[in-house]
């Protein structure tokens, strides 16, 4: 139906049983509507949404040649779809329809019957005035590329990748470090069941490597993301490893021969050394070393060495490697970039960095790990076993000066440490906590177990850690100062070792990835989910999903569950095969556009580009959400949102007052 056809409008006023009718004089409203310009028919009926009600509309469209329909009934959030379908089934474009909400906004909220009727008349007249300007709109179906990208190879990313791969889809897993595994690979035991992290993790890492549907890109980073739901083009940069992955057998000779041996090990949190050519840990996947170009004698210092190359039997060392760029076409993206532990150096009263026996929780994880710097012995820097250890909760968390949120995992891992310390060393363990938070399956039970093991719990946030001692016998030990709030006394406890239970913050680089993906971050830097309760793994960017700690602090069970949830959403999208584009999107009239680019700045979705040749802004229909920020910003009135055009809104306005 063309725009020029003379509008013939039908108006239908619903009684909604007793919900609208007695309060609003529906006959009066219908009669009033009948007097309005272009209205061909105006009726009232008991239930417009019932089948007879819908049939009445359909018949009128056919028999009276209506080309616009207004229904005055309930909220459009309730039945707009119902009536659009009715209009569509009569052969009319479903957008030639407008609703007036005379139930939620009139009959249910107005005392006086006269007032209610007057308001209902005004709302109906406004809808008639608006529908006059309606235009036919359509949606499009676009095919979805049946592969996906997972960014981040920790437990979240691995789980998402495996679930999608098992569903039969091609998965690209991109990890920035030389090996997948993430933080979990650093842990020894996991709460509350104390499974060995390596035992449950290593098989998954191997599965990822060997899965026919997973392509693993380690030591790689996402550089660019283009496209839209179902059709993303992602550029990935593979950093040079200087080791040929095809030739390397993972024998490890190169690492033995490397003369640069005093480089602080990132994986061991700086508690041990590694060589310049290295795998971060023995079970690394892939088991192919990388050369750290900064510390390598050949690459970093430009001097003669090449010991690794000399001894490599398969000639896998390649100092000439350059970064490689790959383009991946995917239908969905899962971000699983995780977290980093808060660096407590700036939490001055805790003396981290000043006192050697103050450890972060991640450092302690490594001390406790059989593959760690002490082969799992919980010893102090002097090699002795501590007699008394303090564990300080909420370091950097629940503190408006640092991280205002609860990091959710610290209470539980602190108690895991206490248990392991009791078990391995018999040391006296003191937990300084504000509130013990153990809301998970078997968590409270674990708390009770640790209590029974003789761990001392003091309710009080530690005020400071100092090496000042009152008793000369304690010289060389640390003193933990806190109020024991339950006994109302200041505790000055001499200890041998302090573990700071540091909180979680978003991984470095999350900001950059957020920008590339168009996914916003909350005030604390975590990626924002579409809906906190009902869409926790989706993002406002269609086709991009979240898994694990990049969305907020989480323990392993929650991370794995969310990773599977994100995979589920991605699989649903890929298996649907098609995506429907939205009808209510923005358009920019190239004849009116003055090329000022105001709309480009206003668009929160980077959905507007600029055509340099024509000097006009152009909307990318696939990215536009129809929010109208561009239209409201545009000084030349060239931008408008379909179904919310100036004429439509002003038409409605005119009849309202």
């Amino acid at each position, binding site marked *: 139906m063309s725009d020029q056809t003379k509008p013939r409008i039908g108006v239908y006023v619903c009684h909604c049983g007793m919900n609208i009718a007695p309060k609003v004089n529906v006959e009066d409203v219908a009669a009033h509507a009948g007097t309005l310009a272009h209205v061909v028919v105006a009726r009232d009926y008991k239930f417009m949404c019932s089948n007879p009600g819908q049939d009445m509309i359909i018949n009128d469209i056919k028999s009276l040649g209506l080309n616009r329909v207004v229904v005055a009934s309930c909220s459009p959030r309730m039945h707009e779809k119902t009536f659009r379908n009715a209009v569509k089934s009569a052969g009319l474009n479903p957008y030639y329809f407008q609703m007036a909400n005379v139930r939620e906004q009139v009959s249910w909220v107005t005392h006086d019957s006269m007032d209610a009727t007057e308001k209902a008349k005004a709302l109906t007249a406004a809808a008639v005035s608006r529908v006059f300007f309606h235009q036919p709109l359509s949606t499009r179906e676009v095919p979805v590329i049946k592969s996906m990208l997972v960014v981040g190879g920790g437990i979240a990313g691995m789980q998402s990748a495996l679930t999608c791969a098992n569903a039969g889809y091609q998965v690209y897993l991109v990890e920035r470090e030389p090996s997948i595994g993430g933080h979990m690979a650093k842990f020894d035991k996991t709460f509350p069941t104390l499974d060995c992290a390596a035992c449950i993790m290593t098989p998954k890492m191997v599965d990822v490597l060997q899965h026919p549907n997973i392509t693993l890109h380690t030591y790689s980073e996402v550089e660019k993301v283009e496209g839209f739901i179902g059709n993303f083009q992602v550029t990935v940069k593979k950093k040079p490893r200087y080791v040929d992955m095809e030739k390397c057998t993972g024998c490890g000779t190169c690492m033995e021969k490397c003369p640069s041996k005093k480089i602080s090990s990132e994986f061991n949190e700086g508690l041990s050394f590694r060589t310049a050519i290295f795998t971060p840990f023995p079970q690394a996947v892939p088991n192919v070393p990388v050369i750290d170009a900064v510390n390598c004698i050949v690459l970093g210092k430009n001097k003669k060495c090449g010991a690794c190359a000399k001894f490599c039997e398969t000639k896998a060392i390649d100092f000439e490697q350059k970064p490689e760029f790959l383009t991946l076409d995917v239908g969905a993206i899962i971000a699983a970039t995780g977290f980093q532990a808060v660096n407590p150096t700036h939490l001055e*009263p805790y003396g981290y960095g000043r006192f050697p026996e103050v450890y972060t929780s991640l450092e302690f994880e490594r001390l406790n790990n059989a593959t760690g710097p002490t082969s799992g012995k919980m010893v102090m820097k002097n090699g002795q076993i501590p007699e008394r250890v303090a564990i300080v909760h909420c370091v950097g968390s629940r503190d408006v000066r640092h991280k205002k949120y609860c990091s959710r995992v610290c209470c539980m891992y602190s108690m895991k440490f206490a248990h392991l310390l009791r078990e391995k060393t018999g040391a006296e363990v003191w937990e300084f906590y504000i*509130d013990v938070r153990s809301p998970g399956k078997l968590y409270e039970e674990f708390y009770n177990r640790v209590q029974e093991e003789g761990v001392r719990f003091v309710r*009080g*946030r*530690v*005020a*400071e850690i100092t090496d000042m001692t009152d008793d000369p016998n304690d010289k060389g030990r640390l003193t933990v100062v*806190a109020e024991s*709030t339950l006994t109302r006394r*200041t505790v000055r406890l001499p200890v041998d070792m302090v573990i700071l239970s540091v909180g979680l913050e978003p991984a470095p680089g999350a900001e950059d990835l957020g920008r590339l993906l168009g996914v916003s971050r909350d005030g604390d830097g975590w990626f924002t989910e579409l809906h906190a309760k009902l869409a926790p793994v989706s993002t406002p960017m269609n086709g991009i999903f979240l898994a694990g700690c990049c969305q907020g602090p989480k323990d392993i069970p929650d991370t794995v569950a969310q990773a599977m949830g994100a995979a589920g959403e991605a699989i649903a999208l890929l298996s649907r095969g098609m995506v429907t584009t939205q009808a209510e999107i923005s358009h920019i009239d190239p004849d009116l556009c003055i090329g000022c680019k105001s709309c480009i700045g206003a668009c929160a979705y980077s959905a507007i580009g600029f055509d340099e040749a024509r000097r006009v802004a152009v909307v990318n229909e696939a990215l536009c959400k129809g929010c109208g920020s561009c239209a409201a910003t545009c000084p030349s009135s060239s931008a408008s949102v379909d179904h919310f055009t100036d004429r439509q809104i002003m038409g409605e306005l005119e009849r309202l007052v």
Partner: protein
Amino acid sequence: MNKASKPNPFTSISDIATINACIQCGTCSGSCPLSDQMDHAPRELFALIREGEYDMALKSNTPWFCVSCYACMVRCPKEIPVTDLMYAFKEIITRKRTAPKNQKMPDMYRAFSRIIKAKGRITESYVMALYGVKHPLDALKNIPLAVKMILRKRLEPKALSVSDPESFARLFELTEKSEDKA
């Protein structure tokens, strides 16, 4: 007004609402050099006020043991201006005259304040003398120290004063709150 609650005497304090954020973590008391002398930890004082136990709060010695070292304030994880609140509590307690009877600091403050009012400047020995009228034992304890000071010519024989001490009486008068006069 709700029958169940008594009027809160602390509402005039500008930052008083910040205590609602207190999570009772004890960082303030743990950081306080004299919290062991206090009948209530600073956080407890906040809790008392939140629970409507205003009389207990007004009679607490806690603000009087505050040394103004600000350790609590820079460490409070909820950024409650603890030290500033202690000053504000003292101001209200002084006006309502509810300071504990055996508390020495209010007398010290009074002596200090009276000398400023009279002279504009403080002479430590005069503050001690005035305070000593009420607390002779404390004054006596300081005598050996005073002797050492005299030997080192560090005790002022004459009270320091500004040239126009009357203007300080005037300043005190001008800043008197209407409630104080009643």
